């Protein structure tokens, strides 16, 4: 796909600058997108990728610079103008109405519903043609609520195509997909390019960027720091450009697992909304062992995390802690039993945004001495603890008295990690511990988890990132519809083989549901 020098420029960004207060989110960014090419926009979280795309799509107004589509300058701040000019965006979080059909979702917003109904036949024919042309198989009359995540994404892409988008922007499209679904998506993108569309692919997954793009733009701290043809680079160099420093993959030394610290036998939990509960899970967490839980999100990961974290009671089966725990199972009981928790959503569950670092540092231990005695808080002890975490875990912040919402995701996560690890836990529940973090923070968190494992902690790592699970785990389980696969030792299965399990094949009675 290289060598498109002569191709028509369909999109031109010129000197885009956007400031949020003192923060320069985008600093004079300029680039061209040519007809029939896929460019990857690569960068750490907070590098400014999403801001840039929001400006391009008219969600934000740039402080300086202009966006030109097919030679026409877009009026700033008008998503409708961007749509009309042929720019389509597929957001990371889908914007679909569950109770409507695929066709209705696609037609939504294209005109008054009345006229849309009159033209339903023509619209359906157009959708079916698009489906066939782009390899986006999905039934137009199916209710969106009944579709899988991969299918919903296809609907989102069809939505953009139906509006005659010639430029597609995909924001972290593979975050929610199995490897197989990712492959299918890439097929679609290749077809789209062959039909003359242009694509901007936002990602921080390097192998995907290498697989799909013809050109890579690297953003760092709001600045465009590199632009290379994909064929002339490799993952390692891209990673270096992203973080501006050499990075190393985590190293896991062989280590014999120790005693069982928690044993789950035949555990069941109630289903929650659309997500299944656990249906008879056996799992043993052992000292000095990282167990990785792979799976597409929404297959019972939250139920398992909440169970171990003390937020949910099982409806069946037995859960045994060593040493044994008696009494009600609750977050406090979990903490008292030496279970440390890194929650999936650090903003919603992990921290109180308007609390200071100090207040957040003692969120789980505030009741215990020295932080509180006889109902009175000892704020200097709490601040001492916060300072210790800030130093030991390299939390970059204005100070312990700053509100935690001012911190970047990575620094927030370091505080949560410090809070969890400083309690000297026996069992660590790490639920999506590095989601959305930059590579520097990812390495930091991973190394700390490995150090805790080497020191004898039992770790359950839940992640939707298969690479992470494979790099870090001694044993890998796949979770699907609340069922657990057998444990696969490290290195036994390839990503593709695990992907088959993630799609539900191999499970008793699960293959049909794939």
């Amino acid at each position, binding site marked *: 796909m290289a060598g498109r020098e002569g191709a028509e420029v369909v999109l031109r960004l010129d000197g885009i600058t956007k400031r949020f207060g003192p923060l320069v989110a985008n600093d004079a960014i300029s680039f061209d997108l040519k007809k029939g090419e896929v460019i990857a926009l690569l960068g750490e979280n907070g590098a400014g990728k999403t801001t840039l795309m929001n400006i391009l799509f008219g969600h934000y107004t740039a402080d300086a610079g202009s966006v030109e589509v097919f030679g026409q300058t877009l009026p700033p701040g008008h998503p409708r103008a961007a749509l009309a000019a042929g720019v389509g965006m597929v957001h990371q979080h889908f914007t679909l109405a569950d109770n409507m059909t695929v066709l209705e979702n696609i037609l939504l917003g294209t005109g008054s519903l009345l006229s849309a109904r009159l033209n339903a036949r023509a619209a359906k024919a157009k959708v079916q043609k698009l489906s066939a042309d782009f390899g986006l198989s999905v039934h137009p009359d199916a209710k969106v609520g009944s579709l899988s995540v991969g299918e919903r994404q296809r609907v989102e892409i069809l939505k953009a195509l139906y509006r005659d988008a010639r430029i597609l922007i995909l924001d972290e499209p593979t975050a929610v997909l199995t490897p197989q679904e990712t492959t299918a998506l890439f097929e679609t993108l290749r077809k789209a390019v062959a039909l003359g569309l242009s694509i901007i692919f936002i990602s921080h997954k390097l192998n995907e960027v290498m697989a799909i793009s013809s050109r890579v733009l690297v953003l760092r701290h709001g600045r465009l720091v590199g632009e290379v043809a994909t064929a002339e680079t490799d993952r390692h160099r891209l990673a270096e450009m992203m973080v501006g420093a050499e990075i190393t993959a985590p190293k896991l030394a062989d280590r014999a697992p120790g005693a069982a610290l928690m044993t789950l036998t035949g555990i069941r939990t109630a289903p929650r909304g659309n997500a299944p509960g656990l249906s008879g899970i056996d799992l043993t967490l052992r000292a000095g062992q990282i167990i990785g839980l792979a799976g597409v999100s929404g297959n019972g990961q939250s139920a398992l995390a909440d169970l171990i974290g003390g937020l949910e009671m099982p409806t069946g089966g037995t859960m045994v802690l060593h040493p044994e725990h008696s009494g009600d199972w609750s977050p406090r009981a979990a903490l008292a039993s030496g279970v440390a928790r890194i929650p999936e959503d650090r903003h919603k569950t992990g921290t109180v945004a308007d609390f200071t670092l100090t*207040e957040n540092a003692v*969120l789980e231990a505030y009741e215990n001495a020295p932080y509180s005695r006889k109902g009175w808080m000892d704020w200097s002890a709490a601040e001492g603890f916060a300072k210790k975490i800030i130093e030991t875990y390299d939390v970059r912040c204005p100070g312990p008295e700053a509100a935690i919402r001012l911190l970047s995701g990575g620094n927030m996560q370091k505080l949560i990690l410090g809070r969890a690890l400083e309690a000297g836990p026996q069992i660590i529940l790490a639920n999506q511990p590095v989601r959305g973090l930059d590579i520097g923070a990812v390495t930091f968190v991973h190394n700390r988890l490995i150090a805790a494992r080497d020191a004898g902690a039992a770790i359950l790592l839940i992640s939707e990132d298969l690479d992470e699970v494979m790099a870090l785990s001694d044993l890998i389980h796949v979770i699907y519809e609340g069922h657990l696969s057998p444990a696969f030792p490290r290195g036994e299965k390839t990503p593709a083989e695990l992907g088959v399990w993630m799609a539900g094949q191999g499970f008793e009675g699960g293959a049909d549901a794939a």
Partner: protein
Amino acid sequence: MRLEPIPNPSALRRFGLPTGALALTVLIASALALLAGANPFATLGLILKGAAGSKFALLETLNRATPMIFTGLAVAVAFRAKLWNIGAEAQLYGGAIVTVLLGTGALPLPSLLLLPVIALAAMLAGALILLGPVLMKTRLGVDEVVTTLLFNFIMLLFVSYLLEGPMKDPMGMGWPKSPALDKAARLPRIVEGLRLHWGFALAILSAIAVWVIQTRTTLGYEIRAVGLNAEAARFAGIPVGRVMVKTALLSGGLAALAGFSEVAGLKGNLTLDLSPGFGYTGIIVAMLALLNPLGVVISAIFVAGVFVGADSMSRAAGVPTYIADILMATALLTMVLALKLTTTRVRWR
């Protein structure tokens, strides 16, 4: 139109906008005075004079502020935990009923012992009145805005029943009022000869106590955590339901002190017009104070001053006293808007 957050608002924004809000309030009040055919400067001057122009006026303002400090604290404490207690009015009357029950000869105790006992019993009554709605909220998910609001009407009807029936003053010439409190059950005046009673001092002490609870105690930390992010609080092991109940007990107790202080300090008996909506005014007071307990004292005095000043202005200038309600409403709206704009920027298109 789009709202964008401002991470670190400038000093100009932080002080300029609230000042502007105040100016706008004064401007609107002036326009209304003009509409009523009075000189706006004279009108505002008269309000100011009526509120704080003399020792008598000032003490009257502080007297009027006293129940609002209590109800304002009750609301501030509850709202801090995102417990929407709209029922301070009901809890106020609960405290008042207990004050009359125990203060009309039921307990033969000396004043120094009797008053604390009555105050505590009144707080208990207010706490229990809020306990029902909060348990319905934590156990059944019933919206407390509805239940606490409706409780106000139930309570008013109950008081009406009491005053027409079992609690009716036999010497009251048929008026629906309770018997007068014994002398021992009356809150004395702080300075002999002036109308200000010890209820005001109790209100100030309560504000300080609430401030200490919120900033220094484990419970205060729990209340703030639950209010700011209940999900994170639950995850961290804070017993959210129990904290809600404790908050409710504190809030209801504080509101009940308003009833105690009004009956024992000012009125001496219970009538149906004991509170001209102090429970609701408490919401305004607490919001203006940004739920800060010490700020509640200031905002209660401000609100009371506007009402007292408007009363006296109305007598002198002939502008209807309703200007006070409008002033209050504008002050609240502009202030809330100004505070929102301090941290948010509006972008048109």
